[in-house]
Structure formats: C-alpha cells, structure tokens
C-alpha cells in the first residue's frame, strides 16, 4: 500500500492558519512596539514551513494518479491567482480600490479557494 500520513500536513496547515489569525488579532491591537509588530507578522512563517515540508513529503509518497490530480489542481489554481492579481492591479489604476476591501488581508483567501476549486475539478475528472 502506498504509505500515507495525511494528518501531518493538515495539522501543520491548521496551526499555520491559527497563528495567522492570532497574529492578525495581535496586530489590530494598538500600543505595540514596531519591532514586536514585525515579529507578530512573521510568527506564522515557521508553521507555514512545516506545512510545506509535510505537504511535499505527502505528495512525493502519493501514487501517480494523486500526483496527477494535485498537478492539475495547481495548474488550474496558479493562473487563476495570477489573473486575479493582475486584474486587481489594473482595477487599482482604472477606478482605485478601497484598501479596506482589497488589501492583501482580503485577497489572500482566494488563493486556497482557487486551489480547492482546481482540486474539485481534477478529482471529478479521474475519480
């Protein structure tokens, strides 16, 4: 059987998300020194690194069909992210976008959404 330990990427991913939201809440507080604010902003990074390591290990141990599905999911998601960012860049010049609606803090959530869309499309094709 193909060895799978799919809980590690999930746990690392959840920790990454949790630390992201903790950092976000912390940064909305006032009166914190700039150095500490930068530290808070960078705290999620080690958890992201762990998630990436486990995800790539999982991918390398996956069988050929799963690797094909993941590859197609990313092939769908990556251009979608690119066109989203490029369109927003042009809209910024065209009409100006409100920072409180279209900052990085609001746009990042579309990246995993596009990946999940790609995964759904790819899985439907083969499974």
């Amino acid at each position, binding site marked *: *059987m*193909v060895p799978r330990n799919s809980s590690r990427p999930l746990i690392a991913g959840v920790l990454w998300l949790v630390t992201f939201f903790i950092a976000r809440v912390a940064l909305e507080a006032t009166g914190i020194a700039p150095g500490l604010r930068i530290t808070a902003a960078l705290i999620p990074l080690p958890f992201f690194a762990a998630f990436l390591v486990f995800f790539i290990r999982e991918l390398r141990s*996956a069988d*050929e*069909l*799963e690797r094909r599905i993941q590859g197609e999911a990313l092939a769908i998601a990556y251009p979608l992210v690119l066109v989203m960012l490029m369109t927003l860049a042009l809209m910024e010049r065209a009409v100006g976008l409100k920072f409180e609606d279209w900052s990085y803090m609001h746009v990042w959530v579309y990246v995993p959404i596009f990946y999940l869309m790609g995964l759904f499309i790819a899985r439907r*094709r*083969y*499974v």
Partner: protein
Amino acid sequence: MKNLLRELRAERGWSQGDLAEQLDVSRQTVNAIETGKYDPSLPLAFTIAALFKRRIEDIFSP
C-alpha cells in the same frame, strides 16, 4: 484506453483494494483505470502485466 483489468481482477476474486495493494497504488487509481478515466503510466502498466502474467497489449487496447 480500454482494458481488461476488472475482468482479470474478478477472475482471481480480488477486490479493488486487494489489487491496489499488490500494485502499490491507491484504490482510487485502480478504480480510475478500470473505468477508463485514467491511463496508467508505462511502469505501472508493466507492473499490471507482470502481476497478471499477460502482455501489456493483451490487457490494454486503444
């Protein structure tokens, strides 16, 4: 591609899970091959042929 995987598997009374374990792939891969949704790689095709003691072209056809 068409294939005889389901018939060959049934002859031996194997489940998709049994076959997947012997091929070192997931059950979803076996199912995808049997339903024609996925064509196996050449190494996997050779493994399948060796397992069933048939030639690749006897199992898979366009």
